[in-house]
């Protein structure tokens, strides 16, 4: 395989141009090293058919995995954020990094927001895009989470956020830090409207994203094996000078420590979310007008806020 990859692919690339090269027929699982037929892998939502390892999907794929295929979903246009508030440059200018990421991914920034149905239930979904600058959170991501929350309130639908982020976008300095309170406000908008806010933590979710909206879900789910934490493992090792325990900061570890409600395989995510929404949203209206029958009166509704 390696000679094929090294010799054949570059030639094809020069002939066809990068865009036209079909995806590799075979993909190697980074976990079990098994060569997988790429069509099988796609069908299995990028979960290794040999070992169950969850590979990272793009945000676009994430939306497709989550919403019902019929009638599908609609992405919303996201509000613009200031492009480079700090005029930041390290070895490269931040504006150039943004441009590259946009060209590479076809996204505006590290998140997508869409609405549609999940198991027939109306829902708004925000999916962070790790492929865009490591899913880092700057003003655009914060703005998108706020927009997603407003859309959820408008549609009286639950908000589900799939997190995938290395944390704050350093190139936006304190503005990226301010996305922690800003996204927290977004979670309150949804909760104050009596709607569920559900987070699904995927690989990886760290730093300021974890320490804000990711950990404020009414329900918190994660994908198997996902790296989830606040501090980076290298920083922790340097600070405490200890070897990190096996499985540290993995979804299962967090579940064991009471931080997550459940660890759900990707292939069961859609039905799990559908069930949860169905159980939580007892006053839910059907996504489309389907019958003229008068709505049933709820039996003795519980007070919204029980006295503490």
């Amino acid at each position, binding site marked *: 395989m390696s000679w094929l990859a090294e010799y054949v692919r570059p030639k094809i690339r020069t002939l066809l141009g990068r865009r036209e090269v079909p995806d590799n027929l075979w993909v190697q699982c980074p976990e079990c090293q098994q060569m997988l037929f790429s069509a099988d892998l796609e069908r299995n939502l990028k979960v290794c058919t040999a070992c169950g390892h969850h590979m990272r999907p793009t945000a676009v794929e994430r939306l497709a995995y989550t919403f019902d295929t019929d009638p599908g979903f609609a992405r919303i246009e996201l509000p613009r*954020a*200031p492009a480079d*508030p*700090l005029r*930041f*440059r*390290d*070895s490269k200018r931040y504006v150039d990094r943004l441009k590259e990421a946009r060209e590479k991914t076809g996204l505006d920034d590290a998140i997508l927001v869409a609405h549609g149905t999940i198991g027939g239930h109306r829902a708004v979904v925000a999916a962070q895009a790790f492929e865009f600058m490591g899913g880092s959170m700057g*003003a655009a991501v*914060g703005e998108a989470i*706020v927009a997603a929350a407003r859309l959820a309130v408008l549609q009286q639908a639950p908000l589900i956020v799939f997190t995938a982020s290395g944390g*704050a976008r*350093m*190139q*936006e*300095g*304190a*503005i*990226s*830090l*301010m996305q*922690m*309170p*800003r996204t*927290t*406000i977004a*979670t*309150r908008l949804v909760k104050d409207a009596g709607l569920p806010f559900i987070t699904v933590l995927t690989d990886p979710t760290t*730093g*300021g994203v*974890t*320490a*804000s*909206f*990711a*950990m*404020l879900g009414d329900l918190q789910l994660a994908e198997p094996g996902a790296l989830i*934490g*606040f*501090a*980076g493992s290298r*920083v*922790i090792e340097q*600070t*405490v000078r*200890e070897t*990190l*325990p096996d499985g*540290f*900061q993995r979804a299962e*570890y967090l579940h064991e*420590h*009471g*931080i997550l409600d459940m660890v759900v395989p990707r292939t069961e995510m859609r039905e799990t979310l559908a069930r949860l929404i169905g159980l939580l949203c007892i006053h839910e209206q059907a996504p489309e007008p389907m019958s003229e029958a008068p709505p049933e009166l709820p039996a003795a509704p519980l007070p919204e806020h029980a006295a503490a």
Partner: protein
Amino acid sequence: MRHFLDFEKPVAELERSIEELRRTQEPGGINIEDEVERLTDKADKQLRLTYAKLTPWQKTQVARHPDRPHALDYIHSLITEFTPLAGDRAFADDTAVVGGLGRFNGRSVVVLGTERGSDTETRVAHNFGMARPEGYRKARRLIELAGRFGLPLLTFVDTAGAFPGIDAEARGQAEAIARSIEACLVAPVPIVATIIGEGGSGGAIALATGDRVLMLEHSVYSVISPEGCASILWRDAAQAAVAAEALRLTAVDLHALRIIDTIVSEPIGGAHRMPAEAVASVGVAVQAALAPLLALDAATLLARRREKFLAMGRDIPA
């Protein structure tokens, strides 16, 4: 023994010469007063000059200066009847976060701060101001307490950041920080936060989501430490000075970006030279920030707090 930063060395030398002169002066000997005055004048000028144009990296060092007044210095001197409260009611009392009840200018308040400690013993006791989840949960408890009794909340932030430890992660560091931010956002009482030293990332914003955010002139507030940023983006921690510049972490920068509301001037040569003066100026600034908030009803206060944070970064003056 005064601790001098590298760039304070010229001042340090002048001050040493002055002391030397004073010490060697023999009774009835030649009059050295003129020389002392000349050197003092020179030292003052040098200090003024140095502090008028501190680089962001130098400010970072001033912000971390061991003699700089820390949270408890502010609390002990600005708050009367200070009554410390302890614990998160679940696991422990994390003294990296200090707080309690007391009076500020006669008014009952809740105070909170991150405390770094001022000598080896207290630094270890306060974990160098780096809180674990129980610290942020204690903060949340006190924020909720303030809300329940209608007491204004004053916070004094000075932390390198949340503690990066195995135990901290296991007990939900991220969740604890998120809940503390949330508690600030829903507390129906005025919140005045002051960055008095280092405002280190999530560990700082956990206590700084306030109606008014003040910052001491030479303090810094950033999403990541200059060293951390340099080692990630420049792959070289030695580039910290360059990263500090790029991060725009000074009070002046953050005021221009509308992330903070007020810059509190420090005495010439920094708060560590004249701690009492620095503490007093913060007291005056906090009072000025708090007064107009007291007139607002809870709904207005909460709505404005949300709006303030939602507006951040949206329109940045060029």
